């Protein structure tokens, strides 16, 4: 078998100078779709490709999580590199929980060299949320310092220390927003601060409460923020009311209104999965109408196969150039 490390593929050679395809889609005024990859608990690249299969044709970008929920999985740099090599458009998630500033800056350069253009800068779920709560929490940076540091690498061509890079990375920088948790009436100010720190796109936490999101966007628009950042709304199908209960009580930062949980509870057992997909489709249709929304970010944990159906039924499927 050919060893790709000794014989760089054409895509790797070109990747250094090329702009983010996700950015091109957004610049073109299209309604963007990104989705979350279920990073495998495996050392086999085939497991990454298997999980990405359903997402590739309907998405403009695929996020590789960085130890989501503080559970260990294949690293996000590795998942992104494998996706880039196979022609997908990866979004690298970087959390501040596990690595200090030296490791993070090194990983950012490495990811760029491997063809990664999109970076989502996160604080990260606390170690106590995961299956190894006895781990040391690092949090040397916070999400905003991480954003600004990535911006410095890109725009100034230097490390935080001021030491020069030979070649600066070309990043499309993103951040998260969670309008659904306190202090709800001030969350738009944090969004402003993230834009100030370098955020060009936003992927929000799961949106199950559209009125709260609408209020957030209204305040953001009053500050003109909708013209300074691409807003992708986080959505996802719920399997059942039990899954919803689990998510809102155990996954940090997820807010699901009682009405949504009740609706699933009232659905007969066999129809729950379809109802969860239906709720997700309805939410996409609603948020699509909100001024300043540029796309959705679909997080269908262990239900990747539902993503094409959701995209099609929500009416946001469009033909994508062959990759």
């Amino acid at each position, binding site marked *: 078998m050919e060893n790709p490390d000794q014989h760089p593929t054409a895509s790797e050679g070109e990747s250094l100078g090329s702009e983010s395809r996700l950015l091109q889609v957004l610049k073109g005024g299209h309604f963007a779709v990104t989705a979350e990859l279920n990073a495998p608990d495996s050392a086999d690249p085939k497991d990454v490709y298997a999980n990405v299969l359903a997402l590739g044709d309907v998405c403009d970008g695929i996020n590789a999580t960085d130890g989501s929920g503080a559970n260990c999985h294949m690293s996000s740099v590795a998942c992104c590199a494998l996706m880039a090599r196979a022609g997908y458009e990866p979004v690298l998630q970087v959390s*501040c*929980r596990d690595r200090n*500033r030296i490791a993070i800056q090194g990983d950012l350069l490495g990811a760029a060299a491997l063809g990664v253009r999109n970076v989502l800068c996160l*604080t*990260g*779920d*606390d170690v*106590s*949320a995961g299956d190894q709560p006895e781990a040391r*929490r690092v*949090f*040397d*940076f*916070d*999400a*905003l*310092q991480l954003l*600004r*540091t990535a*911006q*410095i690498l890109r*725009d*100034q061509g*230097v*490390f*935080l*220390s*001021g*030491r020069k890079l030979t070649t600066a990375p070309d990043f499309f920088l993103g951040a*998260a*927003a*969670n309008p659904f*948790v*306190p*202090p709800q009436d*001030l969350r738009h*100010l*944090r969004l*402003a*601060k993230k834009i*100030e*720190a370098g955020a060009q796109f936003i992927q929000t*936490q799961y949106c199950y409460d559209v009125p709260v999101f609408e209020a957030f966007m209204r305040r953001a628009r009053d500050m003109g923020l909708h013209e300074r950042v691409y807003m992708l709304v986080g959505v996802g199908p719920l399997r059942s009311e039990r899954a919803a209960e689990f998510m809102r009580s155990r996954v*940090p*930062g997820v*807010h699901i209104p009682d009405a949504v949980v009740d609706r699933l509870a009232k659905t007969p057992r066999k129809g729950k999965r379809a109802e969860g997909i239906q709720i997700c489709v309805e939410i996409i249709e609603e948020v699509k109408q909100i001024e300043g929304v540029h796309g959705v970010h679909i997080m269908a944990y262990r239900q990747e196969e539902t993503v094409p159906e959701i995209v099609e039924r929500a009416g946001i499927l469009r033909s994508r150039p062959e990759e």
Partner: protein
Amino acid sequence: MSSFAESKRKPGSEWLKNRPRLLEGIYAGSKSALQLLYPVLKRILPARWMDGIFVWSEEVSKGYLFNCQMCGQCILHSTGMTCPMNCPKNLRNGPCGGVRQNGHCEVIPEMPCVWVQAWQRDAQMGRYGGEIQLLQPPVNRSLQNSSAWLNLLEGVDAQQPSGWSTIELE
């Protein structure tokens, strides 16, 4: 849970913390007084004593008032007179997205989120109100356990990584 700042909290500081206007006045007063006195103190006190006195008095006073963690680069006045180092994630630009619906911390469910309090108190402040929107640079971990007042008076806490300053100057 004993590793958390919160578990070492000294009693009696909540009443004062909920009066950020009073506290910012005390802060501003102390700052002016120290800036006036410092040249004199520097002349009469040996450096070793000065360090000891400042560190001790900060541990006692700010420890009681703010559950100070002695990061050595105090930004209390920019964070609603609420110590950000009490956040289990050590955020200097909070809050994170994990805040619970009741406004409590993701990591310590019984503790109100430090940053929710900070934003609320910042809104009540006059002199330094609104400074919570400033982007705070990464923490200089080498200043841990040193005196924030001395670092302020000597200008040490204003020193930032040179990469960070290049972009600030633009």
